[in-house]
């Protein structure tokens, strides 16, 4: 079973307590009424489907209840790091630091 570090609880918790929330950092339309159909399609359905490093949302459903973001390698299924919702994407240096 995967152990996922919840940034709010600051603890490693079993995967059972979490639910997956899809890709992270999808920006909502600032002005929905002027958004074109193609932009809506991209916002709602088009995802990066990355092979390798993937930024995604998780929710600590059966714990503190919070959504947070995680960086996971989709090839190895290993979590590189997790960080609180609302924070910017960690840059390459931070990912390297988290790996080591």
């Amino acid at each position, binding site marked *: *079973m995967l*152990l996922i570090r919840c940034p*709010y*609880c*600051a*603890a*490693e*918790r*079993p*995967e*059972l*307590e979490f639910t997956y929330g899809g890709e992270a950092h999808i920006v909502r339309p600032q002005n929905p009424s002027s958004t074109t159909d193609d932009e809506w399609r991209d916002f709602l359905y088009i995802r990066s489907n990355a092979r390798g490093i993937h930024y995604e949302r998780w929710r600590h459903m*059966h*714990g*503190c*209840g*919070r959504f947070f973001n995680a960086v996971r390698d989709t090839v190895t299924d290993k979590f590189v790091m997790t960080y609180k919702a609302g924070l910017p994407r960690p840059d390459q240096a931070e990912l390297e630091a988290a790996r080591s």
Partner: protein
Amino acid sequence: MHTHHPLVGRALAGPHARVNMRPVEDCARFILRIDPQNLAAASTIWGGNLPPTTGGLVSASGRIATCIGPDEWYLIAPLAEQDAIESAFGELYATTIHSLVDVGHREVGITVEGPEAVLALQATIAFDIAAMPVGSGCRTIIDKAQIILLRQGPDSFRIEVWHSFADHVWNLLAGICREIELGV
């Protein structure tokens, strides 16, 4: 509201038992949601410190408060104090936005104590129970049923589980305790 207790009369305990399990008597239970910045106001009303960090547990004079999320507290108090707590927090609504919900009818308490309590819980909870700090609490999963687990002492745990799952959790742990007794 408190007439039906699914575990009443049950106990797995003995002077030489390595794990003792007992249902906890009915008590008042609340979920408090409040902005952490206003925690001091809530602590004053509560009449004791509310732990500021997730996982924290404060236990004093029959009352238990544990922080199970960044803005969520689980409060346990004797039944006799329920009305006083509710009306005190009711007055706080005038000045501070918060939510105090009575969940006493929903939850059942089980204490798990004894030198093998960690082993018994570890058999069915997926995170490292031994590493859980004494004096902490968290929400977690026990065999697919959501519980709130409190560690009150090195060998003393308390489970708070929904009524409808209580029988299942009890029987599951009773089976595990039996295995421990038999040395399986």
